[in-house]
């Protein structure tokens, strides 16, 4: 035990002396959190919209006014001469509406329906999908107003639970916390091991009476402490800048954080001992711990959207489970009952990563 603590203290002093890395380790997550929280947003508001009105009647103007009233569309061009395809080509609008000349007449004649055309920029499929829905809904509203308020057979009463304002930050924010703290604990631990192997100082460890397990735990505890400090900093920042606060019992998240950081540290140590070179370790860790977490954790789009052929991979990514915990703590607030499974998965992953790191380090001598 004493020897483990000695290892930890040695590792922390070494880190304290490396100013650049220390600043990066504690400062970079703070910057990344803001970027991840604010720059990734799927909120589709103020859709830039162009309207070519070839009808120019009170009815078509009323139709246009319905679009204005929704506050979701920002009409940047309108009139009879607006060339919507060109505007779309240049990317200055994301959708356009063409009202044909006979619009009002067709609408008032009973036996046929008026037709309008909406052109949507499909470059970004998600935005296009939402714009399409809004345009359809706005048209329906216009028609409903025209018909007078005769109530439909089934009226829908929708309630949006947990996030009634549909604020993206409530969803992205907790995910950003998980992503931000995923990189550095693993990176620092991996670098520390790779450095010892690269510079040959590991030989001194071999020569000492330290066992593999002690060595591993000593290193792991040091970076686990750094990681937990990061967790604290990042959460405080999220309270201040994202306006997040615990919706329920935060203890599952706190417990989960310690498991999450531990699994990151063990994974870093494993990779560091495999690659044996610092620059390769950086590459390997930034790819597996960071990019894979970014893509497969469900931080932007739900995990269920990933094609099944590669979805199984996400089960091995701790961030995928940890995000469920942060979302529960900050948005859902269900507590232990709702998140026992992610916790179980995290502890399994942490033990698995510990095991493979231990297997790599247990032999405390030069291999033949």
């Amino acid at each position, binding site marked *: 035990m004493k020897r483990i603590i000695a290892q930890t203290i040695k590792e922390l002093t070494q880190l304290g002396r490396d100013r650049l890395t220390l600043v990066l380790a504690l400062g970079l997550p703070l910057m990344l959190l803001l970027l991840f929280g604010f720059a990734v947003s799927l909120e589709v508001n103020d859709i830039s919209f162009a309207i070519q009105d070839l009808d120019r009647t009170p009815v078509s103007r009323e139709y246009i006014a319905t679009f204005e009233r929704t506050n979701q569309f920002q009409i940047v061009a309108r009139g009879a001469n607006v060339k919507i395809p060109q505007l779309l080509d240049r990317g200055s609008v994301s959708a356009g509406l063409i009202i044909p000349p006979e619009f009002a007449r067709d609408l008032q004649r009973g036996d046929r329906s008026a037709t309008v055309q909406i052109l949507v920029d499909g470059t970004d499929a998600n935005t296009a999908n939402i714009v399409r829905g809004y345009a359809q809904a706005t048209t329906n509203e216009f028609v409903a107003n025209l018909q007078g308020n005769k109530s439909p057979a*089934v009226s829908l009463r929708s309630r949006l639970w947990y996030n009634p304002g549909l604020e993206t930050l409530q969803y992205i924010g907790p995910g950003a916390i998980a992503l931000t703290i995923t990189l550095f604990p693993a990176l620092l631990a991996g670098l520390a091991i790779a450095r010892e192997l690269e510079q040959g100082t590991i030989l001194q460890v071999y020569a000492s009476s330290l066992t593999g397990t002690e060595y591993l735990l000593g290193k792991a505890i040091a970076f686990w402490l750094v990681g937990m400090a990061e967790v604290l900093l990042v959460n405080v920042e999220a309270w201040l800048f994202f306006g997040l606060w615990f919706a329920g019992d935060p203890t599952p998240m706190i417990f989960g954080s310690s498991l999450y950081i531990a699994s990151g540290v063990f994974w870093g140590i494993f990779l560091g001992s495999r690659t044996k070179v610092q620059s390769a370790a950086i590459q390997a860790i930034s790819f597996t711990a960071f990019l894979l977490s970014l893509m497969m954790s469900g931080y932007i789009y739900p995990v269920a959207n990933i094609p099944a052929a590669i979805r199984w991979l996400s089960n091995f990514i701790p961030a995928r489970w940890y995000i469920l915990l942060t979302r529960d703590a900050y948005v859902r607030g269900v507590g232990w009952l709702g998140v026992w499974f992610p916790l179980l998965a995290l502890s399994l992953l942490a033990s698995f990563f510990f095991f493979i790191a231990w297997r790599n380090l247990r032999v405390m001598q030069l291999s033949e």
Partner: protein
Amino acid sequence: MKSDPLPITNYQLPITHYQLPITNYQFLMFPLINQLLDSRFWALCKKEFAQIFRNRQLLIQILLPPTVFLILFGFALNPEFENLRVGITDYSNSRASREFVEIFNQTDAFVVSRYYANQQQMATDLATGNLTVGITIPPEFADDIAKARPVQVQALYDAVDANTASIAANYVSQLVRDYNSRQAESRRTPGSIQRARVQVQIAVLYNPGLESSWFIVSGMMGVILTVIGSQAAASLVVREKEVGTIEQLVMTPASNTEVILAKICPLLILLTGDVLIALVLARLVFNIPLRGNFFLFLGVTVLYFWVGISIGILIATYAQSQQQAQLTAFFINPPLVLLSGATSPITAMPTFMQWLTYLDPMRYFIEVCRGILLKGVGLEALWSQVLILLGFATVLMTLSIRQFRQQLI
């Protein structure tokens, strides 16, 4: 079987005739080529090529990630919603209500996952995230429908994921609207007046299948050029610094500009190769069209390449070791990537973030990529972006050469 060799020799005559003007032309070109082959620049270039091809790790680092990135990103970031889980609490339990529930089977977007006896159970499942939508049908549903009285149905959404919830809500209200119009249709008595209707024809341009991968993959081309270009350039320059050979390079009569240009040459070829790999993968795996001019695309890619490289050289002039260079790249690359609109649309960002994106050169490159690949437009629509990129390339290149020079003296 024996063929007659005579006719072939006959045919060779005219060919020798044609070769004459070409040799003439070559004769004119020789001094130029010779000059290039004799120059210091060429010698340095050869050295850099040899060095880079011997460096297995760097080669892997340059050629492997684009493939992996493109495929993973293209498939993993998927906003297409299928099989959103719907829970149903049907207090009415009648033919009418079952008919109503059928609306969820009309699209792939939803799947009815369970029927609940009471709302509390459904609420628990919604709370744990097992359901996206919970529908509650009141006991009086069948009665009301039969008597043509308006009836309320409740829809609860798990809105933790705001985007999914709003898309689901859109779908559900569309389905209910269709149901209502069918009801209205069946109720109408022959004598009643026809009501006003508007048909909306929605045409999705550029990406009619709404393939999300088209957006991500076209954005990833910029990411690859920036991230890999800057990292590779940084590690190449820093390596010379670490090993100490940079002093030897400076001692040679070659100018600093020549030294830098020679360093960049092999990278230019490798990274252009990267982009071509990306284009082929985009075509084969994701079916992304190249609607615009290929050579314009190549030209802008080369232009943007200078931007990525200059960033790398700038990083390298500040870093002392490869490890430091890579860590500094972590500081620079994520903001560049996230603010470029490669993974999520810029229009969705908060206003102050949108202002920041104007400072990100990658933003303009990705606009050009999407313009040429998906929209098939040319310079007439993209000239402003190309001009801005030209500005970025000039400024960054001058800066990095100056920094590099200052450092050596």
